[in-house]
Structure formats: C-alpha cells, structure tokens
C-alpha cells in the first residue's frame, strides 16, 4: 500500500504521462518508457488509467471539429509574421487602388482587413500585438511610432506594450481608448461599441473632434458600452471576458446564451446562415464551447440537446420545433 505522499507524486507523474501521450509526438521509445513505468506498480497503473480515460473522454470534443480537411491558419505557419507587414502593404495597395490618390498627399496609413470568417494577428515593432476577428477593418497610422490606430469595424484584441512617452490609442467612431499598458478587446457592431479591459489600465474618452465629454478610467473587468449616443460602464466576471475571447482559439463560448444570440454570433463568421425559425426555440439557453466555423456541429448539438428540428438547406440551416 502506498503512502499518501507517494500517491500525490504518482498522480503528478501519471498526469505528465497522460499529457505527453496525447498532446505531443509519441514514439515507440516513449511507449516503451511508459510501459516500464506502468509495470512498476499497480498504483502507477490505476493513476494513469484514470487520467488516460479522462483524455479519451475528451476525444468527443473533436466531434466539434470541421469535417473538411483543415489547413492550419496562416498565422500559425512559420515565417508568416516576419513578412506579414510587407505583404499586407501590398494587399492594401492592390485592394484600394482607387483610394491611393486620396492618401498620396500625406503618408498613407496601413489598412488591415479580414474577410468574413477571417482572423489575423498584427505584430507591431514595439512588441504590441493586435488580433483581428472576422470582418474587421483596422488602420494604423504610418510612421515609426504607429501607436495610433483606428478600428473601422469588427472586433480586435489588443495586447499593448506600455510606453509612457507615447501612449497607444485606438479611435472608434467618436470614441477613443488610450491605453496605459493593457490587454483589451474592442468590438464595433453597426450600432454599438463595446470595450472590455482584461488587464492593466486604460482611459475611454471622446476624440478631440467629437462633442462627447465622457471620460472613464477603466480597471480590469470593466466593460464600456457606447450605444445610441449613451455611454455605460458595467463590469463582467473574468470568466465571461475570457469567453468573449474564444475566437482567438477558433471557438465560440456560450454561457447561458439564448439561441437567437448564439445564431447571430455564428452568423458573424460566415458559413451557412443559421436561422432560428421559432420564437420559443430562440429563447432556449445554451452553454458550451463550439468550433466557430462549424455551424453544422452546433446545429447537431442543439438538435440533440433540445430535440429541435434541424433542416439543412443549400444556403441556410433552419431550426424549428
């Protein structure tokens, strides 16, 4: 019989084996090493079996993976980020040839745009990073500083290196967010702007040109919502804010979200349009983590969880009762 301390140590070793086995390249030598460790005692075996069974249970989560063969997203491919700025500049020139003359007089800002379902990471010289979600347009002022950006539409996650001499500022419509060393998320829909501060400090205020006077010093967990000319400050638990960032991992996280809102969220990313064609069904609440580009898997889960009818049409998925 093992002593308590020994069991704790064995549990840690078993967890390490389980993660090595399932998340890393696994060779025959590794297997031989694991077999030898397992052969040492029943305590090793039961600890490993339990954790191994756990990981195997999570294999069901891969049901959420898209069925089409996947290309790894470009930002995960080696070498891309180095050439990103140059390539992006070329794309911009090609894409907005008409606008080029307009910018000719002053140094042209760099424009970064994602398509519906797209995602991009921009790495700035100062080490800051901006991650763009689906259907987003962001402009970065040219020049060496490049600490002034404009979010035209969409959603972006900012991880900004603080520089006291040169604050980083994001302009969105009439509003402006000035960072004081932070991580934050900005989402601009047609009629609302939402700024969530995850870490550090930032100031939310109006652009010099606008007539708004609101200025708010934001703390982590603060969420500022600007809608219909009104600015409101609220707070969200860290868990909820982390869930909002699921898209960075290619997932959407729902936490007691109504089906209608869930469908709207999926529809941001393109793919087949999800239509909830039943008033009562639209109010059902769902929770869980879903692959954002696999609306079919979501529809399946909804069908199973609520017993709703799912009708696959060429251009849309209709959910009825």
């Amino acid at each position, binding site marked *: 019989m093992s002593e308590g301390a020994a069991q704790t140590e*064995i549990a840690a070793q078993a967890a390490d084996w389980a993660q*090595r086995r399932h998340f890393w*390249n696994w060779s025959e030598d590794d297997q031989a090493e694991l077999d030898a460790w397992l052969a040492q005692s029943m305590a090793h075996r*039961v600890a490993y079996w339990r954790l191994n069974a756990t990981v195997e249970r999570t294999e069901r989560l891969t049901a959420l993976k898209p069925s089409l063969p996947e290309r790894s997203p470009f930002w995960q491919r080696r070498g891309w980020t180095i050439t990103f700025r140059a390539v992006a500049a070329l794309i911009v020139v090609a894409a907005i040839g008409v606008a080029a003359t307009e910018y000719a007089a002053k140094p042209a800002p760099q424009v970064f745009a994602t398509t519906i379902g797209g995602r991009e990471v921009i790495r700035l010289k100062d080490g800051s990073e901006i991650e763009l979600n689906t259907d987003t347009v962001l402009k970065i002022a040219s020049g060496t500083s490049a600490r002034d950006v404009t979010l035209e539409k969409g959603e972006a996650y900012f991880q900004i290196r603080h520089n006291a001499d040169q604050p980083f500022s994001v302009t969105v419509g009439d509003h402006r967010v000035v960072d004081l060393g932070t991580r934050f998320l900005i989402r601009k829909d047609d009629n609302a702007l939402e700024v969530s501060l995850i870490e550090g400090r930032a100031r939310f205020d109006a652009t010099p040109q606008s007539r708004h006077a609101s200025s708010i010093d934001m703390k982590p967990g603060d969420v500022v919502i600007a809608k219909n000319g009104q600015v409101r400050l609220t707070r969200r638990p860290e868990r909820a804010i982390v869930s909002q960032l699921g898209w960075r991992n290619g997932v959407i996280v729902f936490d007691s979200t109504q089906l209608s809102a869930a469908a709207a969220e999926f529809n941001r990313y393109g793919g087949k349009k999800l239509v909830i064609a039943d008033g009562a069904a639209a109010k059902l609440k769902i929770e869980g*983590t879903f692959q954002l580009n696999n609306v079919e898997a979501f529809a399946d889960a909804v069908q199973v*969880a609520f017993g709703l009818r799912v009708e696959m049409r060429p251009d849309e998925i209709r959910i009825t009762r």
Partner: protein
Amino acid sequence: MAETTDTTREDAGRIRPGAAMNTSELEAWFVREVLPLEAALMQFLQHNWRNRSDIADLRQDVYERVCLAAQEQAPDNTKAFVFRTARNLLVDRIRREHVVPIEAVEDVDALSMAMDEPGPERSAIARDELRRLQAALDRLPPRAREAIVLGRIEGLQGNEIAQRMGITEGVVSRHLASGIGALADMLYGEDAKPRRKP
C-alpha cells in the same frame, strides 16, 4: 484470455466473476465499472474522513487495492467490492493513526445500496456527455483550458500550442497535466447533474 473465448457477443468485454484478468482487461474493467463509481466513492470518503487533503490519496489507495485484488479474481459485484475495500482501508488507517473511533465508518452495505447504480442507461448518459464535457472544460483555469482546447478541438500538437500561446513547452506541459487532473476530478469525482434547460 482463454476463459472468455466462449462468451456470447452480448457478453463480449464483460469479465466473468471469479476469473483472473490480464492487464488490458483489468484496465477496461477499471474504466468501465470502477471509475463511474468515483463520485459516490468520493462522497463516502469525504463523509468518513475528516482530513480533506487525504481524500484524493485515499481514493487512489482504494483503486490500487481494488485492482490488485481484481486481477487475481474479478469480483461479482464491483460496487459492493469497491465500497468494502474503501471501508477496510479507512479502518486500517484509523487503527494505525488512532484518530477516529472505528464506529465512525458508516455501514458500507447500507450506504452502497442507497446509492444509484451507474446503470445501463448509457444512451441517456451519452446525450449529456458533450454538454458535461464542455461544462467541465469551461470550469478549468483559463490557461489550462486554452491549452486543452487547442489540443483537442483544433488538434494542435504541444509545440504548436506553445507557439500559439506564446509560452514555453514546459509550461504547456504543466497546464495540460493540471488540466487533465482537474477534468478527471470533475468528470469522475463529481455527481453528474445534467442541468436541464427549459
């Protein structure tokens, strides 16, 4: 194993009580019949053992004893056997450590009878499985969850997870290991209470 070659198809994978088990049969039996009892076992241990920090170790001691015995001879009633083993283990500990009177340990037979069978309603359980997995995943610490999601849903390898999260491979390993441990505790050690939505 020779003893099971003549079993019918419905019995395939079932272990005949009294027979010895080889290692892979023992693992399959342990995962299929013992692990689903974990929530009840944890309840039993928590009820009968004051020191919370010992519980996880006691559980592993129970598993170890159960499997050592079962590889020689498969018990005919797994649940009764697991709880009897747990009770005996606690009694041994109490004797050795002179902490609590022996009467503190509840009547195992009464207790295990009162608890629900994990039951053959596997399909009903399967329906809630995905939701349960997701709920468990959502309760992990954010970094551990991110690492596991990247590995399981996006299918990234450890080194790619490290790149994606901007952390070292060693740190990824630690997040994954702690995440797996926490998931095991949630998926096996807690009562499955499928929360029905309206």
